């Protein structure tokens, strides 16, 4: 193209090959191949696996999201790849393209499709969030999405106490002893009450698909039901200071029998220090220890704070 008379749009359209059709076909073929592959082949390997119901639901969620993302990514790649091959100017020549300023149908279609996708994702995500009891995420002191209570098994209540820099666990409906080990029975719902003694930590049981921030003075509740035996990693997921990277340990999902054996052994081991522990409560309030800016200067030494808000009921009674 040269000169001061650019071709008229109609003329150009007639001469052009049917780019849109070609791009669409390439995209369709690629998506038809890739999407099932992604869902069926990659999907089962997506984290966090299926060690608990919440982990399985997260894995399903990621499978669906990846399957939806695949055609979107492929469309962009196909289009830009095609454009870079076919919509090139000749080397060393400065020539103008057709002056297309917009296309109502394309723009409206684009907006409509992206909005529809977004609304679908929102609906899907909300369903997945509600469906297996908050999807293993921390739900604050008054969870609104809790598991449907099955009459046969009472959930195991474990208080996770994060401090700089380790996790300890209190088994609230097994006498309330405290230990550094985390054992869970298989196929029994677990309620984690995550709290912190000092700064913000994050309780992340990776294979269980459980993550809840440990906030001082807050009882952050997360639900899950382990469904497979094995080992899972517990890591701190919020930066908490120098030893943040070293704040990890392993937990174990064991059979019901092995769990009660372990429970008995630990109860005996920790019998001496049980009286030293504060009464089981939604969260620790260590009071005097540590103090505010050092024990010498307690700005509020006279005030007797109420231990916890009345809205939080103690889970220890169960």
């Amino acid at each position, binding site marked *: 193209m*040269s000169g001061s008379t*650019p071709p008229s749009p109609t003329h150009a359209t007639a001469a052009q090959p049917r780019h849109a059709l070609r791009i669409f076909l390439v995209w369709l073929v690629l998506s038809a191949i890739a999407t099932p592959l992604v869902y069926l082949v990659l999907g089962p390997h997506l984290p966090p696996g299926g060690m608990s119901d919440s982990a399985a639901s997260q894995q399903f969620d990621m499978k669906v999201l990846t399957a939806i993302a695949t055609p979107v990514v492929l469309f962009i790649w196909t289009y830009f790849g095609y454009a870079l091959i076919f919509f090139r100017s000749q080397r060393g*020549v400065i020539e103008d393209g057709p002056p297309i300023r917009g296309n109502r149908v394309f723009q409206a279609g684009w907006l409509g499709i992206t909005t529809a996708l977004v609304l679908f994702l929102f609906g899907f995500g909300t369903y997945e969030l509600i469906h297996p009891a908050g999807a293993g995420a921390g739900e604050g002191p008054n969870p609104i999405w809790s598991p449907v209570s099955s009459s046969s098994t009472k959930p195991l209540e474990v208080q996770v106490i994060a401090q700089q820099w380790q996790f300890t666990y209190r088994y609230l409906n097994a006498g309330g002893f405290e230990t550094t080990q985390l054992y869970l029975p298989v196929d029994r719902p677990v309620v984690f009450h995550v709290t912190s003694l000092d700064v913000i930590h994050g309780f992340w049981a990776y294979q269980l698909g459980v993550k809840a921030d440990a906030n001082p003075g807050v009882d952050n509740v997360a639900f899950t039901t382990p469904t497979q035996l094995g080992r899972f990693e517990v890591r701190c997921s919020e930066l908490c200071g120098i030893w943040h990277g070293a704040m990890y340990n392993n937990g174990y999902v064991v059979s019901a029998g092995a769990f009660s054996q372990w429970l008995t052994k630990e109860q005996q081991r920790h019998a001496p220090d049980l009286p030293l522990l504060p009464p089981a409560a939604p969260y620790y*309030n260590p009071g005097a220890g540590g103090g505010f800016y050092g024990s010498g200067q307690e*700005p509020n030494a006279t005030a007797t*704070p109420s231990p916890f808000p009345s809205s939080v009921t103690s889970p220890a009674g169960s």
Partner: protein
Amino acid sequence: MAEHSVSDGRSGAAAATPTSVQDVPVHAVVDEQAFYARAQANASWAASRMFVAIGATVYGALVFSYFYLRSLDSNGLWHQPSQHPPILLSVVMLGLGVTSSLLFVWATRRLRAGRRGVLDWGVASAITTGVLALTVGLSIWQLSRLPFAPGDSGYASVFVGTEVVTIGMLLIELYQIETVLARSIRLRGVLSPGGDAADSSEVMAFRLAVDAASLFAGFMAIVLVGVFVLFYWVS
């Protein structure tokens, strides 16, 4: 960069004929000085409002902190009834701050309406400057003898935090009013009725500064009342 060929698509270049230029409204380019004077006025108008928006957002964050901590009532320590700054001093400070700010706003309005001369306005701003300085001094004095420690409760924290911000804001207001006052003194020959208005860019800059100061003073009057209501009535 590749050498471009002469026969490229500079399709529009040849069309730069005077015919298309004549479509431009000519009055828009009549006077460059007027153009930039107007631009500067618009910019000053916009910027003064943006600064008020910034100030309002800072206070918004503090008000959010107030209600957030109040709703959480962490450890039952939002507020203890004994923790109140002396009410009499606070009322006096509120009265001084608000009336002086409003005085300045009022004087500016009169000046703008042309009812009175600059002298009248100057007296009002001088009074405002003095009273504001007094208010700032009283605020600092009050902070130094609070009946509670800053870390005693959520209320105490927000109170101390807000008071310090308010002192800073009052100092900004004070600075603005003082500078326009000082400028009006320098420009008194030009500004007074029948004065020589030769250097009118100076006059315009002065007017813009007065407007900005008046806007900020009005904002501070509202803020002072709001802060008072928050800490002495609502809590």
